[in-house]
């Protein structure tokens, strides 16, 4: 028998490789680096938006790393659980598990291990244990409540499941102060109510993909017209809500201006989606929604680093 011949002794079957061909890059891909970068950004903003200067930057950066690893770990566990539907969808079929580069069990072990280590490291580096508890809850919510429960069972999946993606500012805030007051939860609320119009705009564009995978996204279950209405109503709620942090000590005039102008433009694009006139309207809203959220949090970051809070 030569080394290149199929190995017939494996219990998994004649063609199963003895040693995985997965590279470190495949495991990095399991962590969803783009989602991680968004989590790092919003958690960092939560840290700097907290009242007073960050007391210990080295510990804050270690906390930020723990939050990033926790987000990556939940991404790996999500890919482990969703490997079957990832294999069907055009957007996700090249991921490490459906493409056969990483065995499912390894992804589960990898995600589970990193989850434990990230929560433990945050408990060690953060002020108090609230941040670690919130991170543990975020991972649990994303993997168990959203991935295992909501995603395949209800068109409200991304509405409720969006909480997991919204929590990082509160985790960051708690990591440097040991508490999460109302202002921190306002930032969470901004991301939470931003998520439905953002993802529903995408699902209007990719409804065939979701249909093929059997995921009950709103356009597939209730129709495009109903989804367009919901996008409009959630946008009407989001735009004024996003201004509210400006009324707290967490934000100032730059944030307020960004929220007002950005909110007006968000509503304009959402109204185009609501009317259903142009085919490009959902794509336009989807693209702007990313810029809008980034602009809001970047404004907070600039305000605090430029000392605009006096």
């Amino acid at each position, binding site marked *: 028998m030569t*080394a290149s011949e199929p190995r017939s002794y494996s*219990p998994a079957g004649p063609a199963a490789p003895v040693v995985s*061909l997965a590279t*470190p890059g495949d495991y990095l891909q399991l962590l969803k680096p783009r989602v991680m970068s968004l989590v790092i950004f919003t958690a960092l903003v939560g840290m700097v938006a907290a009242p007073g200067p960050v007391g210990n930057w080295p510990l804050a950066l270690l906390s930020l790393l723990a939050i990033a690893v926790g987000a990556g770990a939940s991404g790996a566990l999500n890919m482990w659980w969703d490997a079957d539907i990832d294999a069907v969808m055009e957007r996700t079929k090249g991921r490490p598990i459906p493409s056969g580069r990483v065995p499912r069990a390894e992804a589960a072990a990898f995600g589970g291990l990193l989850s434990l280590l990230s929560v433990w490291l945050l408990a060690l580096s953060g002020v108090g244990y609230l941040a670690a508890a919130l991170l543990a809850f975020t991972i649990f919510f994303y993997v168990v409540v959203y991935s295992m429960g909501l995603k395949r069972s209800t068109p409200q999946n991304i509405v409720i499941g969006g909480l997991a993606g919204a929590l990082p500012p509160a985790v960051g805030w708690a990591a440097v102060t040991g508490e999460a007051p109302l202002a921190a939860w306002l930032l969470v609320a901004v991301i939470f109510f931003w998520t439905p119009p953002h993802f529903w705009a995408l699902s209007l564009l990719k409804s065939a993909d979701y249909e093929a995978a059997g995921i009950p996204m709103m356009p597939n279950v209730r129709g495009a017209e109903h989804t367009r209405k919901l996008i409009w109503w959630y946008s009407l709620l989001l735009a004024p809500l996003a201004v509210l942090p400006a009324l707290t000590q967490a934000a100032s005039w730059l944030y307020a201006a960004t929220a007002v102008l950005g909110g007006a433009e968000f509503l304009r694009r959402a109204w185009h989606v609501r009317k259903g006139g142009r085919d490009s309207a959902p794509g336009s809203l989807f693209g702007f929604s990313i810029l809008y959220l980034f602009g809001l949090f970047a404004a907070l970051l600039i305000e605090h680093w430029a000392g605009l809070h006096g």
Partner: protein
Amino acid sequence: MADSDRRPSALFTAEEGKPTGETHGLSEEEVRARGRRNIAIALGVVAFIILVFLTTFFRLADSVQGAG
């Protein structure tokens, strides 16, 4: 026992699962992939040790400053 576990094999007897004495080598691609993963695991362990050391160091320094 699943059907796949009873499949006749080259390295183990089909009935009892005992080693037959036959061996095999890994392909070059498998060896390279395993090597890269081993290095990544080693770097990960070292990074983790450094992280724990730094966290403990800064946490202790913070406590000492607070007490002083």
